[in-house]
Structure formats: C-alpha cells, structure tokens
C-alpha cells in the first residue's frame, strides 16, 4: 500500500493527459494514476490529423506521450479498453472487459463524437467520419484504391479532410448545406476568397446541397441530393460536426445538457468527479479547440493537487485553417450587429482581406484572409478588452505600424526563412532549432519554447517571431499565452491584482504579501521578489524597508554586473554638463583603480568598466569627495537626462534646454520606477537630444515646451506620443513629476512606458496628467513625498560603511 489516493482518468486524449501533466508538475507523488483509453495508442495530437492525412506528417510525429512516458510517471495505462460504467457508490470505474478500477477522484475526458447524418445508406462501407487515427488510416487506404471522394461538410474539419484527400491524389467534391463555407468562422467575403483559392487547387464544391441518400450495395458508390442529382464517390467523409461524448456520464447519473455540466473548478455534480475537454459544458459553452482544453487542464490539476486557488472563467477562441498555403484567421463575433461598426481592408490583387468588428471602441471579432500576421495581436486586444481609440488610425495596418520600426516585417517572412536563420539575436537561436524543439519535445506554448530553447527569453523582441513559428509548426491551433497572466509561477494572481491588494489591504512586507495572496512558495522566486519589492516601496515610501535580497544584483550593489563578474561605475553628470575639475577627478579615479575601459555612454555620461567588486566602496568614496553621486545606470530607476546646449549657445535654441534638463534630473534622480526611465530635453524642434524616443521628452519651441511621452530607442524603436504643450519651466516640472508618478503607480513591474501607454491608452494618461488639474497636483505631490525618502546617494552610504559585508569575501583560504 502506498497510502496515496487513487485517480482514474477516463479518456486518453489531449485534455485528460494534459491535466495529468499539469498535476504531475504540482504534486508528482499525490496519486496512483490509472488511465483508460479506447484507442490502441498513447496520447496523440488530434489537431495534427489533417497534416497526417495530407502526408505532411506521420502518426509517430504526432504522438505526444508514448508508452515510456506513462511508465516513467508510474501511470497504469489501459489502451483499447472502454469504460462502460462508473459505480459512484463504490467509487469504481468498470470497463467492457470487466476490469475494475477504484478511485478517490475521477476525471472524465471522453471528448466528442463525430455526428453522422442519419440518411439512408450512412452505414455502408466507405462512409466514415474524420475524428481519429483509424479514420485517417481508412481514408489513406481508400485513396490508394478509389479515385473520387465526397466530403460532406464545408466547415473547418471538412475542408481539412478534403485538402488531405486531394493531396493523396483523389478527386474531391465538398458538399455543403449552406451557401457559405465555414459560416461559423467566416463572413461572405472571406469565405468566397477561400473557396476561390481552394478551387484553384482543384477542389470542387456543391453548395446549398442537401444529401438525401448514400448510394451503393455494400460499398458506397455515390451520393444523391434532394434535387435528385447524383455524384459518384468511392469514399464519403462526413464532417458535419461533433457532439460531446456524454454517454458514460449520463449513464452514471451525472447531470448533462449538451455536455457534462461543470463549475469553475471543473467539477461535475459529483464532487469527486471532474471533467475536462470537449465533453464539458461550462457556463453554457462547449469547446472544440485545443487552447480552452489546456486552460481547463491547468485549473483542474490545480484542484486535484489541492491547491484550490485556480478558477476557469471560460475561453475565447480563435481559429486558423490548417491547409498549407492558406492563411486564414477568425475570432469572436465577426459578423457584428446594428450596435457595432466594421473596419475593412480589402486588397484583391494581393488576395488580402481583413475585417474587424468593433463595439464601444473594443474589438469584438476579426476575420482575416491572406495576411494573418496580426491575428494574435487582434486576439490579444480582444481578450484584454483593450480600448482601441488611440490605435484606431493604424489598427487595420497591424502592429508593425504602431510606432514599431525595429522588427516590423520579419514575422511575415517567417515561413520562408531557412532553418539557419537566426530568430533570437540575444541567445543565438535559429529557426531550425526552434522548430526541432517544438516537434521533438512536443511544445505548445511560448513559455515551453522559452524554457527549452531560450529563444525570446532575454529582450523579448523576437516573441512575435517565436509565436509565428509555433503557429506555423503546429499548424495554427496552438495554445496562446493566456491574457490573464500570473505574476510568476509562485502565484495565480496578476501584477495588477497583487499591486491592488498591497494598496487596499495595506500589505507592507513580503511575508504579508505571500500570506495574504496565498503564494505557493515560502519565499517567492527571482521573478516575483523584485516585483513585490518595487510595489511595496512605491506604495509605502518611508514605511517599507527596501529588501536587498529581493533586488537583482545590480540594484543590490549599485553597480552593473558585467559578463566576467566585474562591475561598471557611472557617476551622475547632471544634464550631461561637466567641468574640467570633475573630469580630472574621474581620470584620477580611473587610474587609481586601474579601470581597463573608460567609455562615453549614449546618455552623455562616463562609464568606468571592469571594476572589481571589492574596490567599489573605496572608489565611490573618492567620487563622492569630488562631488559625484550614483548615476543609477544599473537600476529600474531614473537614468539620464539627455540635453542639447539650447539657447545659451545654439543659434537655433529657443529655450534653456540644458538648464531645464538639469532641473528635471534634480527633480527625478533617485526614484525607483517599474523599469528604467530616460528623459531628454531638446532646445528646438531639430531635436538634437533625441527627446522623442525617451520615456519623457521635452521639445522646446519659441512659445513654450512640448511634452512627449512613451518613446523608446531600444528593442522596439517607438517615437513618443504628444502629451501636451505648456508655457513655463515650472509647469514642465509639475507635469513631469505627475507623469512619472502615474507611471510608477499603474505600470506593471518591468513594463517600459512604451508598452504601458499602448496598454492603458494615451487618452487615459492625458486625462490624468493634463486634463485633471487637481489629480495632476496630487500625483506631483505624491511623487515629491516619495522622493524625500529616495534621494539619498547609495554610493556615499556604502563608502561610509553600509553593507560592508557585501563587498568583501567572508574568508580567504589558500588552496
């Protein structure tokens, strides 16, 4: 006896096995697990049956969990056995051959069944559905002997089946009851485009045709329609839809409607029985796509592991057609109604069609044909219910047109890229490696790919490319990053929820957050601790004591770690203005501590690179005596204020940009922000200080000062948005303080101003910082209060002995 609880899974498919995988991650030793599957295979990727039929993949390619996986995890697998009865009183599952498996908890993952139209002759040989490997084998066998196939059903599944059979050399006619293909995913225009390109490939269509009889003796020879016409066929594939497989649940007395009813924790009406996947009905919805199943699996596993904190709130789904060479994307309500408006882009020559359905400035649905690159982006905006007012002008042209000049068009060429094309420039990961990892390690999500290949794991600029590769390799229906993203694996809560709780529930220490928010780890991890430390510091200035152990090394030791473990030191040079005496002092320090590299930075400062950790406090002491303070070049903090010379010297200068820059730097230095924060001040619209790619940019004009926000010169070049124009330096300082504070209070940790502004919307920032005068003054006041605690030079403190143990070894022992 192991003393473990017994868990039985009925249904060896994607939803059920995914639940086990999630469970094993959380509680590997909690259950003795038994799995029943009525197919004679391990768990395979059902969404990849179409490529198998098309000859693009083999059955082995799509097996997700082979026998060894079950053995390695101590799972008892009964292949080819069907559970016919659940004795809920004795808590026991019973199969057709009399095998009994007792359970403490049971998961129903019985999937769905294809719907066979009950016309005369539907049971003849050569009439099949398109659901499992057996059906695919039958189709492949028929394609070798027969010539003509009829596919009944012009939906997603039918078209994929038809395409596969055509690839196998058959003459294929798709029969559809309605006048529009894929009417549940496409509008008329997109459906017509799709039909035309399928026709060009040789597919034939009979639309608005109702099948009344399957002809033939034992074997099918053709079909007859209501108008009396006939079509010869050696194979008939019925792909008119699926129905949740609820037979077993019904027989066992579990409440079912269209599917097995479950609550937000995926429990059926019998609390010891859970259900996941296509057999489930949740809040009135039944799902037939893979992404919702995975979301359900995660929640179900969380409860089986007795964590008890996850909830399933339903899924929003999107569709891509897995027909190689046809790009089609559909999500949400794509037809709209009298309350919605449409945005349409149609380019017949390029074969491109995009339609967005918008209601109350929010995307409600999308249909795209020909160019589906931005499908994931629209889908994200839709799931986030993001206000698109500020994006409206460029929305239809795609994300690449929203200020992103850096990596815009690469994703569109992704399919054509060679295997040795580098996708992730930070970690040197090529396309081939990523595709290999996705297929051989059976990866479904961006997180999986990051963990296994490191692609997009550093700066993140290739995230879109990696997602496209996932979509391409998996044929589309891959599991997208959920929009409700937890802060880190230690918690189910999002950044926003945690920050809100810290404020409203007055949580003032890390352990208080861990306890109140039910953290799953005793002391967090390298992702959540720095984030929480920031939120606590921002919310409770003066009260919360900064925790060095919750800070990344650079911020803990106030210098930037380099690849060889040495550090760089960047003193603050206010507004980029220095003196011969200061330069002399820096030169002396550089010589005294044998600094190997002295570099002028892009932010008008001097970087001393290659300093040994043990030398830092003494070096800072020397710099302090020369009047320098820390430049915070290592922090999620105010970095530099870049200026041009302005009206003091420049013949074009309109205002004293240098002096204003120095005032801004004196105002903001020392503040901790969600991510690094850079300011620029240009003395005229020629903009020599490049203020319009800074987080906050001031462009001086003759009549005053233009304030620009949300720029970025890094990974994704983004020009600033114009915030407003003010008339005096005092106003610049007030608006700047309010803007920084609003960013500090509402952005997520590690979110630069650029993505933050795109997320919350420029309108809202304008409203809070420009239009609401009382609010602006309150923001500026809160900023001033927090600065009272922040503007202490960390270098001087350490030169005077703070944290001394940090900078010297505990002991020296000769080897």
């Amino acid at each position, binding site marked *: 006896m192991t003393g473990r609880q017994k868990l039985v899974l009925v249904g060896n498919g994607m939803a059920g096995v995914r639940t086990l995988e999630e469970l094993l991650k959380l509680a590997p030793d909690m259950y003795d697990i038994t799995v029943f599957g009525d197919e004679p295979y391990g768990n395979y990727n059902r969404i990849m049956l179409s490529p198998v039929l098309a000859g693009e993949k083999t059955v082995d390619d799509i097996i997700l969990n082979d026998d060894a996986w079950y053995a390695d995890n101590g799972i008892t697998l009964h292949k080819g056995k069907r559970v016919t009865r659940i004795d809920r009183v004795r808590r026991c599952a019973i199969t057709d051959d009399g095998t009994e498996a007792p359970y403490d908890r049971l998961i129903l993952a019985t999937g769905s069944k294809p719907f066979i139209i009950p016309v005369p002759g539907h049971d003849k040989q050569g009439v099949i559905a398109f659901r499992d490997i057996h059906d695919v084998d039958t189709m492949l066998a028929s394609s070798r002997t027969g010539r003509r196939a009829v596919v009944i059903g012009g939906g997603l599944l039918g078209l994929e089946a038809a395409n596969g059979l055509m690839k196998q050399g058959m003459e294929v006619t798709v029969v559809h009851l309605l006048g529009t293909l894929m009417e549940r995913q496409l509008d008329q225009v997109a459906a017509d485009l799709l039909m035309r390109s399928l026709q060009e490939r040789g597919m034939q269509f009979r639309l608005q045709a109702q099948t009344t009889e399957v002809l033939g003796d034992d074997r099918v020879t053709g079909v007859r329609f209501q108008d009396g016409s006939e079509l010869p066929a050696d194979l008939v594939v019925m792909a008119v839809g699926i129905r949740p497989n609820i037979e077993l649940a019904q027989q066992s007395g579990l409440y079912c409607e269209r599917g097995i009813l479950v609550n937000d924790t995926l429990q059926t009406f019998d609390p010891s029985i859970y259900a996941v996947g296509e057999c489930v009905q949740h809040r009135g919805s039944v799902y037939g796509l893979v992404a919702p199943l995975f979301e359900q699996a995660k929640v179900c596993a969380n409860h089986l592991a007795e964590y008890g904190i996850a909830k399933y709130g339903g899924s929003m789904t999107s569709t891509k057609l897995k027909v190689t060479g046809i790009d089609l994307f559909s999500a949400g309500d794509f037809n709209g109604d009298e309350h919605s408006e449409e945005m349409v882009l149609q380019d017949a020559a390029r074969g491109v069609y995009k339609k967005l359905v918008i209601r109350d400035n929010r995307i409600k649905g999308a249909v795209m044909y020909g160019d589906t690159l931005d499908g994931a982006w629209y889908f994200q905006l839709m799931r986030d219910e993001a206000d698109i007012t500020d994006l409206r002008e460029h929305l239809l042209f795609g994300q690449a047109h929203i200020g992103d000049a850096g990596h815009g068009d690469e994703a569109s060429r992704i399919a054509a890229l060679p295997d040795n094309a580098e996708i992730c420039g930070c970690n040197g990961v090529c396309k081939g490696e990523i595709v290999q990892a996705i297929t051989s390690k059976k990866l479904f999500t961006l997180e999986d790919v990051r963990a296994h290949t490191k692609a997009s794991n550093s700066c993140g600029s290739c995230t879109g490319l990696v997602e496209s590769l996932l979509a391409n390799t998996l044929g589309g229906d891959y599991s997208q990053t959920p929009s409700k993203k937890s802060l880190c694996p230690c918690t189910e809560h999002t950044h926003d929820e945690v920050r809100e709780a810290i404020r409203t529930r007055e949580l003032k220490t890390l352990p208080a957050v861990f306890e109140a928010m039910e953290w799953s780890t005793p002391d967090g991890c390298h992702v959540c601790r720095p984030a929480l430390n920031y939120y606590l510091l921002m919310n409770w200035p003066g009260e919360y004591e900064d925790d060095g152990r*919750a800070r990344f090394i650079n911020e803990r030791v106030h210098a930037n770690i380099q690849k060889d473990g040495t550090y760089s030191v960047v003193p603050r040079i206010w507004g980029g203005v220095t003196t011969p005496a200061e330069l002399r002092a820096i030169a002396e320090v550089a010589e005294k501590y044998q600094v190997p590299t002295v570099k002028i930075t892009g932010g008008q400062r001097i970087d001393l690179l290659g300093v040994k950790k043990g030398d830092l406090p003494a070096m800072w002491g020397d710099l302090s005596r020369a009047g320098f303070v820390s430049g915070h070049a290592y922090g999620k903090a105010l970095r530099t204020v870049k200026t041009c010379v302005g009206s003091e010297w420049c013949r074009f200068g309109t205002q004293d940009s240098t002096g204003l820059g120095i005032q801004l730097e004196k105002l903001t230095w020392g503040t901790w922000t969600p991510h690094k924060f850079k300011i620029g001040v240009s003395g005229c619209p020629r903009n020599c200080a490049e203020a319009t790619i800074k987080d906050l940019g001031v462009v001086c004009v003759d009549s005053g000062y233009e304030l620009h926000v949300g720029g970025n010169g890094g990974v994704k070049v983004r020009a600033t948005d114009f915030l407003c124009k003010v008339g005096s330096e005092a106003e610049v300082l007030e608006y700047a303080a309010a803007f920084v504070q609003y960013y500090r209070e509402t952005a997520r940790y590690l979110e630069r101003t650029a993505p933050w502004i795109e997320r919350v919307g420029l309108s809202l920032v304008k409203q809070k910082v420009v239009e609401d005068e009382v609010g602006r003054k309150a923001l500026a006041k809160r900023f001033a209060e927090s600065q009272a605690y922040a503007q202490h030079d960390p270098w001087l403190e350490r030169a005077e002995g703070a944290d001394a143990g940090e900078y010297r070894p505990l002991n*020296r022992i000769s080897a």
Partner: protein
Amino acid sequence: MKQWIDIAALSDVPRLGARVVAHGEDEIAVFRAADDAVFALHNRCPHRNGPLSEGIVHGHRVTCPLHNWVIELDRGEAVAPDSGSTACYPVRVENGRILLELETAAEAAHG
C-alpha cells in the same frame, strides 16, 4: 588533505543571501536559505560562469544573475530544462559557526 575549516559565523551570511570564500584562485559561494540551511557551491554557473553568489536565493535554489539559470543548492544541478552542474562542497553549521570541508595547502604541507 581534507579538513573541516571554520569560515565564519552563520550570522555573517544574510538569510536568502550568499557570501564568498576566496579559495586560492577560486571562489566558493556560501548560501543561507530562509530556513537557515547552508550550502556551498563553486561560485560559477555551469552555463557561462556567472557568479552564483550574486543571484537571488529562493527556497533551496539560486537564480544566476547573468542569464537566469536556476541551480539547486543541495546538488549544484541546473533545474530542467537547462542541464549542467557545478561542484558542491560539504558544509555544516555548529554552534552558530559555518564549517566547510576543504583541501588546504597548509594541511598538504603538513601531511
């Protein structure tokens, strides 16, 4: 020969932190978890030699400051899907002092 050496007081290493012991040309990172468990590893990440002593300690793990590899403090092994390991040193705490078992030159000379 190997010998247990008293290197410091437990209180010299902050909770959820690390300190370094210079050992000839090498460095040994000494970690202290929240539960006061103490670990000693060669101060180099198996990935690109990052100084593990500068990483964030969580549970009985440390995250390398250079590229976020996570290393198990008790075995020195990288957490999957990364793979690799760094050397561990026997270490224990007695009467509030940290003892490290090391090969020392002094002892070698005597032996």
